[in-house]
């Protein structure tokens, strides 16, 4: 009689679009700007030593290893984590969660699982996109500030950044995805009472998920240095 809990493709695809595709412009723009900032700050120092071309090392390593995964996760926590808390919180207030249960539909199956799967797909892809835009931003700034040409920059970049550095950055994204979805949904389900509670839980979800993302990132750094990656 009862279906086994099955994969719900529609909400997964919907969530990939809202959390991933729709976030492309903001993630792209901010990591592009971050790339510019990193290159700009580094340019002065490197120029003093005449080590202009090493700007590619600086931009490539810092963006791919740290900044791109981090900025992407923070933006997504603000955009989607809050949306999840607000959506589930509103559903709790309007008795929709209760209604789901009485209709024999597990709220976790319908509301949480598709979001986790979607985010596990979307966040690493967004991080890759942020990597690219961040490097492009740094590349443009290097040419303006240091006169390092695009070809020269890319040649150096390939030498400076090996595969493991790139994977370390992208590899953090699934962890961040789980943190963001779990905290957003958890705070949503904790909503009790009225509309003011939805706002409170939404705020809490954003603060906590950004906090946890940064803590996790710090732990990753410690772990990677201990493992010598």
């Amino acid at each position: 009689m009862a279906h086994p809990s099955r994969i719900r493709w529609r909400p997964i695809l919907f969530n990939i679009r809202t959390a991933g595709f729709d976030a492309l412009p903001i993630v792209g723009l901010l990591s592009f700007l971050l790339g510019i900032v990193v290159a700009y700050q580094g340019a002065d120092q490197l120029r003093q030593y005449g080590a202009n071309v090493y700007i590619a090392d600086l931009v490539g390593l810092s963006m791919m290893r740290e900044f791109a995964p981090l900025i992407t996760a923070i933006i997504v926590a603000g955009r989607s984590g809050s949306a999840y808390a607000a959506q589930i919180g509103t559903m709790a207030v309007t008795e929709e969660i209760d209604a789901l249960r009485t209709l024999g539909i597990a709220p976790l199956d319908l509301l949480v699982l598709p979001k986790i799967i979607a985010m596990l797909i979307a966040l690493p892809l967004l991080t890759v996109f942020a990597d690219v835009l961040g490097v492009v931003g740094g590349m443009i700034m290097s040419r303006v500030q240091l006169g390092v040409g695009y070809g020269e920059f890319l040649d150096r970049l390939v030498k400076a950044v090996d595969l493991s550095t790139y994977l370390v950055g992208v590899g953090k994204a699934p962890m961040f995805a789980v943190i963001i979805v779990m905290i957003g949904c958890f705070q949503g389900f904790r909503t009790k009472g009225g509309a003011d509670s939805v706002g409170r839980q939404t705020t809490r979800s954003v603060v906590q998920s950004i906090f946890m993302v940064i803590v996790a990132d710090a732990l990753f750094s410690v772990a990677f240095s201990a493992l010598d990656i």
Partner: protein
Amino acid sequence: MPGQRSNGEAVIELHKVSTRFGSHVVHADLDLEVRRAEIFALIGGSGSGKSTLLREMILLQKPDSGTIRVFSNDLQTLSDEAALVLRQRCGVMFQHGGLFGTLTVKENVGLPLREHTNLDDDLIDEIASWKLALAGLNAEAWTQYPTELSGGMMKRASLARALALDPELLFLDEPTAGLDPLSAGGVDELVRKLRDLFGLTIVMITHDLDLLWQAADRVAVLAEGKVQGVGSMAELAGMDKPAVRQFFDGPRGRAAQQQGQRELQARAPVSASKEKP
């Protein structure tokens, strides 16, 4: 008399149910029984634990002690599979509708069918339309989203969804709260019609004295964690416990009582002739 239609078999049995929120005692050793094919109403002041009791009956909450049996299933020891089967035998209409905001009214009604049956989409559509018509919702509202509906339409849509899987047991949480008097009058009739047509057992929470007089077969008055009295409204009117009296004394109580008794007398010959074979 409406009360004679039920054949006495218990559908819901509550035995020594106790519920506490912290130090606040909501129910203290409460006993209650709902019989098949009756319209049963729970009344009581704010905070008397009516809603909590309803939530316990529909598996949304567990009492601290005591047993609740629905269709002879003990809710305390129910397995997940058995709970799923039981939930499909019960329909719940929530106070604020509990309709899914991202789905149209018709999709809302079709959702339980899509979840739990293998019917094809055309058939589900047809069943949903039929349930919506039964609940008395105009066809132009079927393709709208819940936020576009008025309070009364929302309740009717919610009722249609509760009826989607042809439940044997229907729970109504404040079916007339927030409705204009005309729509509220329609609900009285609808509730009676559902019971008469499908033999549904209906449990409702209400404050609406008219609905109590017009539709309820038996009424339980909840106060101080206990059931203070159970019986038809006419029987309750004869009791002299203060918790029961408050529903009959005062100008509103008296007016509803007079109106109710007039209509019961007016209806009596009609229902008597209907029951002849």
